[in-house]
């Protein structure tokens, strides 16, 4: 295999344009006659709209039109939907309240869109938006999920009495209760998972273009999955039939999940383009991003973990309340259910698990998947509980984990998942060795001599990636299949285009996908182009989230390459008058094994298109399509260790070392994988130490800028020590598992376990800000 194939540290092909400012993002798109949109948004967390008066606004300079929700409804544009049906344990379907793209009679969070202003410039649009007079009747608001369930709480949607969307369960409650009743020890803990704002570097943007002559729409948008956007806008929002709607997601500057969903703005700009007769562009500013990008996490859980006399876990009981915000976003129902509770077995052999999950409406921005999506919540809950249990039982955290590790595969957990491969102790041992766990006591003494508190903590995470077998997710309520597609198009000169349904918004697909093809065919990586993000160019695909592009997207490419290779071999065998079985592909040539006979790759490609001399009956051309539907999730796992030093005078936490030992199966590009882990850990440090979305009681967002929302910065982070263990994934042809979310999943519990180790008790919630750590230290004394 050449240096540019699988396993090589190929520098990223796409970085030249990104690093030289030549990336083409949605906001860079300009078309003739284009105008600018600004949205009138609710300044209240909860209010009735009595009247909207846009008379003055419409008369402002440069204003083309001001459009509201009644007009949108009159034109038949549908409400936004959640695409994953969950049933409560009593059998009733989830209670989805209406989410109108433009609010008509009620606004339910600060930032809820009410009207769109289209004007010659963005400044004029904004000026006019300020002149739209809205008569509100303020209503009481509620922002905390637990408070929203309390009797007498403000009622947010008529469809969901008591603000309860569903009350769902998984597992066996009776077996769990029985095990808890007869346990030698039960650890009980309350776990809070803080609310996060995704903060991709590129804010959301969209450009809607309606072509009167063709009755056709084009939507440029910041999307992780343009085909799904087209499907949903066509099938559910009645924007246009699919053949009349082209969705293009060009370069996208980060998503972390927040660009999976269809938001009101895309729909409205397309509709407004038809309504006004001009192309309409909207670009979110950072404040709007804080106010309207779907948030992540926001769980409160009560946990009971039962042990027998040998410290083996006998049962786990979890009661979770999840805040879904003011409306149900596209995949919001799946995140705290099938992406969360199905991972509650962690790396452990737990005979009985029961999880109850209630999801709740509040007057906050909708909550949906954010890097890890459900799995960070499960991992944080489980690994904090394991740490607390080890402290209570008086055993080392490593010993308690080793006692309970799953050691044979496949392993069926009590919560749906069937783990296919793993070696959890290998990662644990590698991490402990890299962290010099044995030397911690001496390091702690040194810290104490300097007046500092030192702590160490671990977390053993597992996640389910490569979402997912379509039939499986369909049976659990998903509205779509989660396969992936690929087309490998060999040109007549032998260069190759790969059209993929995956979507890169920072992951480096243009490099890793090309590495796969280069290695397989022995052709230069420069001769391969990866095409994605345009529904007119690329066949239907499902997009990128849940660390699925490698395991699912690349598997589809493998399947297409299998077909290309088979046909190329037939052609080569014919040209060389050899047997097809004897043809091997090496270094850009098709050779007859064991002879010096060979034809170069480009010549086979050319022969396929000249079609002058093809095997009898063969169609011309060399282009193949494949759809790959995975047979199982993949299960990346690993062990993270954090070591911290705390200044007891200020409560400031210094992360003195961070070790990650990950099993991602086979790896395509170690450099890119390391980058993914670095970024993931940085976000995990953000969640554990810094980031926290906060609303006041009226629903005003208090953390609506970087003045108050603390993002991780370079000097908040240590140098990371990474290592990789490999149990190849048996469920896909490349043996890969996915690496995009692990860092964000595994790191928060390791950090909080380290900090609570240093402060000497477990009463600490994320983010562990200096003030909270200082207060926790005082509480200990």
């Amino acid at each position, binding site marked *: 295999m050449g240096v540019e194939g699988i396993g090589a540290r190929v520098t990223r092909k796409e970085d030249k344009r990104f690093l030289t400012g030549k990336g083409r993002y949605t906001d860079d798109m300009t078309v003739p006659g284009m105008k600018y949109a600004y949205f009138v948004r609710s300044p209240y967390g909860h209010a009735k709209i009595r009247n909207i008066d846009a008379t003055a606004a419409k008369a402002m300079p440069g204003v083309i039109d001001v459009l509201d929700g009644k007009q949108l409804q009159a034109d038949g544009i549908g409400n936004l939907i959640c695409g994953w049906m969950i049933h409560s344990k009593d059998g009733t379907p989830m209670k989805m309240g209406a989410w109108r793209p433009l609010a008509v009679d009620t606004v339910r969070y600060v930032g809820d869109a009410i009207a769109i202003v289209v004007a010659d410039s963005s*400044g004029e649009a*904004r*000026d006019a938006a*300020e002149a739209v007079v809205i008569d509100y009747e303020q209503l009481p608001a509620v922002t905390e999920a637990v408070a929203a369930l309390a009797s007498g709480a403000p009622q947010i949607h008529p469809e969901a009495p008591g603000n309860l969307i569903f009350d769902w369960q998984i597992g066996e409650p009776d077996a769990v209760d029985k095990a808890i009743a007869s346990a030698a020890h039960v650890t009980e803990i309350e776990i809070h998972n803080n609310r996060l704002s995704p903060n991709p570097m590129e804010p959301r943007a969209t450009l809607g273009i309606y072509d009167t002559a063709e009755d056709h729409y084009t939507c440029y948008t910041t999307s992780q999955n343009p085909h799904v956007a087209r499907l949903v806008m066509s099938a559910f929002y009645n924007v246009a039939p699919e053949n009349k709607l082209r969705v293009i997601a060009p370069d996208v500057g980060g998503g972390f999940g927040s660009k999976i969903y269809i938001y009101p703005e895309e729909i409205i700009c397309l509709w407004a383009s038809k309504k006004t007769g001009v192309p309409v562009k909207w670009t979110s500013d950072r*404040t709007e991003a804080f106010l309207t990008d779907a948030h992540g996490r926001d769980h409160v859980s009560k946990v009971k973990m039962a042990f027998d006399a040998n410290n083996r876990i006998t049962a786990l009981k979890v009661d979770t309340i999840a805040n879904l915000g003011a409306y149900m976003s596209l995949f919001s129902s799946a995140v705290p259910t099938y992406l969360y509770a199905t991972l509650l077995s962690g790396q452990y052999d737990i005979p009985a698990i029961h999880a109850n999950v209630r999801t709740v409406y509040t007057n906050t921005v909708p909550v949906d998947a954010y890097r890890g999506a459900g799995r960070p919540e499960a991992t944080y809950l489980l690994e904090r509980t394991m740490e607390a249990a080890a402290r209570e039982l008086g055993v080392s955290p490593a010993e308690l984990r080793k006692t309970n590790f799953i050691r044979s595969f496949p392993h069926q957990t009590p919560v749906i998942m069937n783990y296919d491969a793993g070696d959890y102790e290998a990662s644990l041992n590698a991490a402990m060795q890299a962290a010099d766990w044995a030397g911690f006591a001496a390091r702690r003494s040194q810290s104490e001599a300097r007046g500092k508190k030192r702590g160490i903590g671990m977390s053993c995470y597992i996640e389910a990636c490569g979402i997912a077998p379509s039939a499986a997710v369909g049976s659990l309520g998903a509205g779509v299949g989660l396969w992936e597609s690929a087309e490998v198009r060999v040109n007549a000169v032998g260069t190759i285009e790969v059209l993929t349904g995956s979507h890169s918004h920072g992951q480096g697909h243009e490099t890793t996908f090309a590495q796969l093809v280069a290695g397989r065919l022995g052709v230069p990586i420069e001769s391969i182009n990866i095409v994605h993000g345009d529904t007119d160019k690329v066949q239907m695909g499902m997009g990128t989230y849940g660390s699925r592009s490698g395991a699912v997207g690349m598997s589809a490419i493998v399947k297409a390459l299998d077909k290309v290779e088979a046909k190329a071999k037939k052609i080569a065998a014919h040209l060389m008058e050899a047997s097809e079985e004897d043809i091997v592909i090496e270094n850009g040539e098709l050779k007859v094994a064991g002879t010096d006979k060979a034809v170069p790759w480009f010549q086979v490609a050319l022969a396929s298109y000249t079609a002058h001399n093809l095997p009898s009956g063969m169609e011309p051309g060399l282009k193949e399509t494949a759809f790959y539907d995975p047979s199982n999730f993949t299960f990346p796992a690993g062990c993270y260790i954090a070591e911290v030093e705390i200044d007891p*005078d*200020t*409560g*400031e936490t210094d992360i003195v070392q961070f070790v990650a030992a990950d099993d991602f199966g086979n790896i395509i590009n170690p450099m890119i994988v390391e980058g993914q882990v670095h970024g993931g850990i940085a976000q995990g440090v953000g969640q554990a*130490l*810094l980031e926290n979305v*906060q609303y006041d009681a009226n629903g005003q967002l*208090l*953390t609506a800028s*970087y*003045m*108050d*929302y*603390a*993002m991780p910065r370079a000097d908040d982070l240590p140098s990371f020590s990474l290592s990789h263990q490999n149990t190849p994934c048996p469920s896909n042809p490349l043996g890969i598992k996915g690496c995009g979310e692990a860092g964000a999943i595994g790191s928060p519990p390791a950090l909080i376990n380290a900090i609570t180790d240093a402060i000497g008790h477990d009463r600490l919630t994320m983010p562990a*800000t*200096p*003030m909270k750590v*200082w*207060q926790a230290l005082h509480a200990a004394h």
Partner: protein
Amino acid sequence: MYATSYHRASSVEDAVKLKSANEEGKYLSGGMTLISTMKQRLAAPSDLIDLRHIPAIRGIRIEGRKVTIGAATPHADVAASRELAAICPAICKLAGHIGDPHVRHMGTIGGSIANNDPAADYPAGLLGLGATIVTDRRSISADDFFTGLFETALEEGEMVTSVTFEAPEKAGYAKFNNPASRFAMTGVFVASTAGGVRAAVTGAGSSGVFRHPGFEQALASNWSPDALNNVAVDPSNLMSDLHANAEYRANLVKVMAKRAVASAG
């Protein structure tokens, strides 16, 4: 941002004239607060009169132990001045830790103190040094200059032209950053000056920068961090916000004061 007219003043007289001709105008001296406020449409001056390019109010002049810093001198210049560091390293260190490199090359000392953000560093430095603020029409002692949150003794149209102070015998500054904004969540400047010991606290007071007489008395008799161990910090006049309540700030005030003394040597 609402539309505004930009003027680049060539001299102090020119600036004052432009300001008086434009009642709804504002002086701009770096714009590290004003421009972002305008971008958020929270401020809408009709005119901006940029002071950063007036040669007469830019630069650092040292005569013996008397220091004069022109109002339009950016933080980076103060941070990098070797002559100033030789006689008052604490103010250089303070300037070198304001914001980030972009801020330090755009923001100016005059802009900072005229804005008097309760979490800004310079107000603590100048109050701690017992500096004098010179304007186009008078001299104001730092004790009289900083009057409240974003409020100063400056009158309508009055502009800062320089600040002056005697280099202290020793001085130190320590601050604890707000984890989000990296402004001072608490910063304390201590100085042993010809006029006595001074200790000024920024980032913490609910009325902005303030002197702490308890610290000053304790340090006057014993210049050492431990001298502050038993000095009480009253949380009742301190700010409470998302990142630090008054009780935690009171703790930080003392911890930072001790560190400032330690850094002063």
